[in-house]
C-alpha cells in the first residue's frame, strides 16, 4: 500500500444537491400518514402501498415526495435514478411483535412481511418499487453510523452511475428516531418518539465543476474543510436534519482523517405542515 496521505492529491468525489427535504412525525401519527395519498405531480404510490411498511419507510417516502416538490429539474425522468436509504434501527416495533408471536404461538404467527418490509433494504426498495426507479437500490447503515455511511456511499456511487446512466441521479434518504420506541413486554409501545426523514437528491458531478458556493456534497480531507460545524461519524440524524434546516455548511466524519462536507442549498424554508418542511430554491 502506498504511503500517501489518507486521500490522494487527485482524489475527487462530488455531487450537486438538486433538492433537499425534511419530514418528521411522531410514532402515533405515522399510521395515519401511511394511509394518506402519496403523490406529487406525475409520481404517485399505489393505493395501500405502505400498509405493511415500517415507520421509517413511511417517513422516508414522505421526504422523497417533498424533495420532488423542490427538484430543480421539474418533471424530470426518474426511471433510471438510484435510491440509497440510510436507516437507523428500523423495524424495531414490528420485530418485537413478531418475536413475541413466535414465542407464544409458534412460526405461524410470524408475519411474512418482516423480511421484505422491515430489513435494511426495505426503505430503498419501497422507494424504487413505489416510484419506478430502475437504478441500483440498497440500504445502508442500520446502526448509529447510518448517516455518515449513507452520505459516503452516495458520493462514491456517483462516478459509476455517471458512466452507466449519465442522466441518472441518486435519492439519498436518511431516516431515524430521535429516541427509539420503548415497548412493554406485550409489544405495546409506551412512548411517542419523533421519526425524522431527510432526502437529498444528488446529481453526480465531475470534479472540474467544483464550485465552493454551490449546493453539493463531497469527500475531502478533514484539513481541507471550510466548515465550522463538524460532526462525528456516529452523528444522529437529528443533528444533520437541524443543520440543513438552518442552511448551515456541515461536515460529517467518515474516518479519522476524511469528512463529507455538505453545502446545503441557499433556501427559503416553506412550511407545508407543522411537521413537514420543504426547501425551495431562491429565485435567481
Amino acid at each position: 500500500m502506498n504511503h500517501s496521505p489518507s486521500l490522494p492529491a487527485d482524489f475527487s468525489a462530488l455531487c450537486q444537491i438538486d433538492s433537499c427535504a425534511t419530514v418528521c412525525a411522531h410514532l402515533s401519527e405515522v399510521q395515519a400518514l401511511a394511509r394518506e395519498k402519496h403523490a406529487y405531480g406525475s409520481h404517485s404510490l399505489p393505493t395501500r402501498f405502505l400498509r405493511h411498511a415500517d415507520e421509517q419507510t413511511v417517513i422516508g417516502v414522505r421526504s422523497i415526495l417533498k424533495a420532488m416538490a423542490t427538484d430543480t429539474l421539474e418533471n424530470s425522468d426518474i426511471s433510471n435514478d438510484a435510491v440509497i436509504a440510510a436507516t437507523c434501527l428500523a423495524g424495531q416495533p414490528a420485530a418485537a411483535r413478531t418475536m413475541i408471536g413466535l414465542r407464544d404461538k409458534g412460526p405461524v404467527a410470524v408475519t411474512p412481511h418482516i423480511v421484505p418490509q422491515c430489513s435494511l433494504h426495505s426503505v430503498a426498495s419501497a422507494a424504487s418499487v413505489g416510484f419506478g426507479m430502475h437504478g441500483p437500490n440498497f440500504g445502508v447503515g442500520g446502526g448509529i453510523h447510518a448517516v455518515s455511511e449513507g452520505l459516503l456511499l452516495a458520493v462514491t456511487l456517483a462516478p459509476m452511475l455517471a458512466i452507466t446512466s449519465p442522466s441518472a441521479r441518486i435519492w439519498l434518504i436518511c431516516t431515524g428516531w430521535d429516541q427509539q420506541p420503548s415497548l412493554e413486554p406485550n409489544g405495546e409501545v409506551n412512548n411517542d418518539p419523533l421519526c425524522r426523514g431527510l432526502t437529498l437528491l444528488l446529481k453526480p458531478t465531475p470534479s472540474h465543476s467544483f464550485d465552493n458556493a454551490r449546493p453539493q456534497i463531497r469527500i475531502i480531507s478533514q484539513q481541507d474543510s471550510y466548515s465550522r460545524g463538524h460532526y462525528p461519524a456516529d452523528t444522529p440524524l437529528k443533528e444533520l436534519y437541524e443543520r440543513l434546516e438552518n442552511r448551515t455548511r456541515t461536515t460529517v466524519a467518515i474516518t479519522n482523517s476524511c469528512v463529507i462536507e455538505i453545502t446545503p442549498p441557499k433556501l427559503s424554508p416553506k412550511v407545508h405542515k407543522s411537521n413537514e418542511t420543504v426547501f425551495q430554491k431562491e429565485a435567481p
Partner: protein
Amino acid sequence: MVSKSSQIVITGIGATTPLGNSFNAIGDALQAGRSGIDWCDIGTFSRQQEHVVAQVQSVNLTMEKAVISPSWRIDKSSRLEQFAIVPAAHALADAGIQTSSCTFEQKNRIGFIAGIGAEQLKDWERDFLDGGHDVFYANRQPSLVHRAAQILDIHGPAATVAAACASSGYAIALGKTWLETGLVDACVVGGCDVLSPTALAAFHNLRALSRRDDNPKKASRPFDQDRDGFVMGEGGVFFVLERSDSALSRQSKIHGVLAGVGMSSDATHMVTPCSDPVQASRAITEALADARLSPADVDYINAHAASTPVGDAAEAGAIRDAFGAAAMKIPTSSTKSMSGHLISGAAAFEALACLVAIQRNIIPPTINLDTPDEDCLLRHVPHHSISLPVRVTASNSFGFGGSNLCLILKEAA
C-alpha cells in the same frame, strides 16, 4: 482516480460456509457435487426441533494473530460476528496484510464493506431467545462492520449495505468503486448471514422455502421442474480487493480480477421478481460493458437460481435476453443446489465459486437437476462438474425489492 491500466483484483479470500472454511475445501465440495444441506437444530421457539437447512458446522479458529485483536473473544461473540470477523481476518491474512505491521496511514487506507441484510433483527432475536429485552428498547451501539473493523485494526471507511439476497454482491461492487475513486488502497468486502427461527418462519410463511423435508440433500433443485423453493443457509465470505498496481507492487498473489459490475432494479414488487427480464438483463449487460467484454467471452455463468418456481424461470429469461445466442452455449449452474441460500452472504459465496471455476478449470454442477424445466432453457450442467477452460465468469444475484446484480470475474493475466 485510478490509472486506466489498473484493474481491481482479489488478493485475499476468507470463508466460513456449510461447504467448508477454506477456498480449497469449498472448491473440493463444489467439484465433487457435495451437498451441505441436512436436518439441523436451529434454535428454540420453532416448535419443530430440526429443519432442512445448510448450516455451518464449525468455524476455523486458526486465527492469524497479526490480523485480529487479541482482546476479541470468539466464544463470547454471536454467530453473525463470527461469520463476519473470522472470514474477514482470513481474507486479510491471505492477502498478506498484517495490520499489526501497518503504519497508521496504511490502516486509514483499508476500507470495509459488509453486506448484511438484517443485522439488528438477528441481534434482537438472539438476545430475545436468551431471555433478553434489547428488542424492547433497541440500545444504540455501533453496527457489526464498525466493531469488526476495530477488532481487525483497520481504520478506513466502513459501511454496511443491504440489497436483500444480493447484499454481499453490492458490497463487492461498491468496494470496486472505492478503489477506483482512490478512496482506499485495499477494501475488505463480502457478506454474511445466520440461520434464525424468525427468518425461517417468515420465508416459510411466504411459501419461499422448499417443503421437501423427506430428503434434505434433494431439497434444493434449481431449474428442475419439481423445484418448490429454496433452502436457507448461513455463513460468511469476504475478499480483499486491491488495485492491480498496488497488489503487484506488494507481490501479492492474485486470485482473480473483478472485471465488471452491473446493478439495476426491477421496481415492480417488494418480493416477487419481475417476469419481464429487461432490468435483470440490464444488470448483466452493464457488467459486461464495465468489463469491456462481450457475451461470447464468458465461459461460465453462476446463476442466482435459488430453486424457487418464479425466480429461476425469470433468471433464465434474463440470461437468454442478455447473452442472446451465447446463452445456450455458456455452461450455467447454480451452486445453491449444494450450499443452500446464504441470503446476505450468497453473492460473495457465488463469487468464490466462480474463482474456483477459474482456478480449477471446472464448471460446478447443479445437483438434483433431474428434469430441467422447459421455462429454464439454458446450457445446464446437471449432477456432476465438468472440466473446461474457464477464463471469464458471470455471477448473478437478485434480491427482494427487485435488486439485480451481476459480477464479472476473470482470471489474472
